[in-house]
């Protein structure tokens, strides 16, 4: 009898691993091995025709830390994250509260909010290009109505990053809205009734009851938004190419440029490791702190 159980257990283990093997092989090939290989190549020098690659330890990292462009890009990415995350979450929340209340043309409103989500970022960038074109663009034409001068939104360092940020917010807010919308629909009706009986104003009800109940959703959206602030760079390829003067360059774009335009794999690798480190910290916070305090079903 004991032997039978043993055989059954062994059989389960074999089945388990057979079922897992496609995933395990692919994940190893395209996630785990590349992560280690990236680390490995980040501690070696760049191979040139004259000099073979050699072990340099932390040299690539110290190079980066001494590179003003790197700091410029990191700062840009922090501004990008710092602006896109709270603004798109705030707009998403407003959208959800509106889309959930009894307003006219609710179907149209919801569709309008969500549509940018299903467009490719490249297409979104193309659409926005016409808004930003100096002189001809929609923004300048609206400005001209009020007697404002023409502005080269994408071509000057002061506004380029913000122009990119606005496109990101436009693309993301509607996506985050649907999570809020779903969360709002789980809030029991009687809470609203109770608040009405108590004479609480709508604003009071929203602030004291709705917002706290939406906290887990907000945290979930924040983690997603944080990941996206590293990932979403497609529009840079159309709108600014990181310029002018690196004013709108973001870290992933810089990694791409370093590797595929400057052919400097070791420095690209060092940057990749730094990004993975930051994402790892985010993952750690999510799995240890947030998941204990929140409860998605």
């Amino acid at each position, binding site marked *: 009898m004991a032997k039978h159980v043993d055989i059954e257990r062994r059989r389960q283990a074999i089945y388990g691993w057979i079922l897992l093997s496609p995933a395990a092989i692919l994940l190893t090939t395209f996630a785990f091995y590349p992560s280690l290989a990236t680390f490995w190549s980040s501690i070696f020098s760049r191979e040139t025709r004259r000099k073979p690659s050699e072990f340099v330890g932390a040299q690539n990292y110290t190079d980066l830390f001494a590179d003003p462009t790197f700091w410029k890009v990191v700062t840009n990415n922090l501004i990008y994250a710092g602006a896109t995350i709270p603004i798109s979450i705030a707009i998403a929340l407003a959208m959800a509260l509106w889309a959930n209340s009894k307003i006219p043309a609710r179907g149209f409103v919801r569709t*309008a909010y969500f549509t940018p989500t299903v467009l490719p970022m490249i297409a979104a960038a193309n659409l926005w290009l016409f808004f930003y074109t100096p002189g001809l663009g929609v923004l300048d034409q609206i400005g001209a109505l009020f007697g404002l001068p023409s502005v080269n939104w994408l071509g000057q360092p002061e506004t380029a990053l913000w122009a990119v940020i606005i496109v990101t917010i436009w693309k993301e807010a509607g996506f985050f809205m649907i999570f809020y919308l779903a969360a709002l629909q789980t809030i029991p009706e009687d809470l609203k009734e109770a608040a009405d009986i108590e004479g609480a104003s709508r604003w009071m009800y929203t602030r004291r009851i709705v917002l706290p109940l939406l906290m887990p959703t907000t945290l979930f959206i924040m983690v997603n938004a944080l990941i996206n602030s590293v990932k979403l760079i497609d529009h840079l390829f*159309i709108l600014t190419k990181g310029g002018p003067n690196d004013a709108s360059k973001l870290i992933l774009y810089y990694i791409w440029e370093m*590797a595929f335009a400057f052919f400097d794999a070791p420095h690209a690798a060092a940057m990749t490791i730094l990004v993975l480190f930051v994402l790892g910290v985010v993952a750690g916070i999510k799995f240890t702190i947030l998941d204990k305090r929140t409860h998605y079903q």
Partner: protein
Amino acid sequence: MSTLSRHIESFGALLLAVIWISPLLFAFWAAFHSTSDAVNFNLSAPWTLDNFRVAWEGAPWLKYFLNTFLLVTVILIGQFIVTTLAGFAFAQVQFPGRDLVFILVLMQLFILPEVLIVENYAMVSRLGLFDTILGVGMPYMASAFGIFLMRQAFKGVPIELHEAARVEGCGWFGILWRVYVPLARPTYLAYALVSVSTHWNNFLWPLIVTNSPDTRPLTVGLSIFGAPENGVDISVISAATMMSVAPLLIAFLVFQRQFVQAFLRAGIK
């Protein structure tokens, strides 16, 4: 007072909706008008299909469409197979080391394929998959997100059904195929919609791995077509943009509810 604030809110909601949809509406309008009419907002200007003709002739769009279609299909089939097997293993098979492997899988949620472009590019080249549709699709097939989703769906299947199928003499694969897969249909549908719209829209990785019109998806084709060096004008770019977003956009407008539900099901874990 209350009705007034309600009106203000409705107005705010509508205003935001109009602002949100306006880039798309403007591009739609520009695509059907001559450039000078488009930029001057000449509302009485005649409609034209010329921009579509020029855009269509400017690039092998049919090929790009086909490539994108093949790409999302290859990825989806790969994802269905890989995530079904792994999801089932994590949900219903007991074996030592399972929890550890599951944590490793979850880690991939944060090791974005987008960040590992350099090494993944080297890997795809090594495997001889550079400039192939399979090469573009492969890094996404073992999606940790999909595995997680399938695991959740399979966990919800009553164990009695599993036992019953077993008594009937079904093997592991039979149980998976006859009991679990059919019951997880809504999850498959949700996952498919999210996956298709993600990969239809993906850009950076295909840009790196493709090198020729024979493999390039729509997004990469569109970015090359829209490059300022090509000297194309607003109306023609709008037409090209409209053409490339049309299939997904129409699908979205028709199956709106399903799309939103899909993103929701997939997002709330």
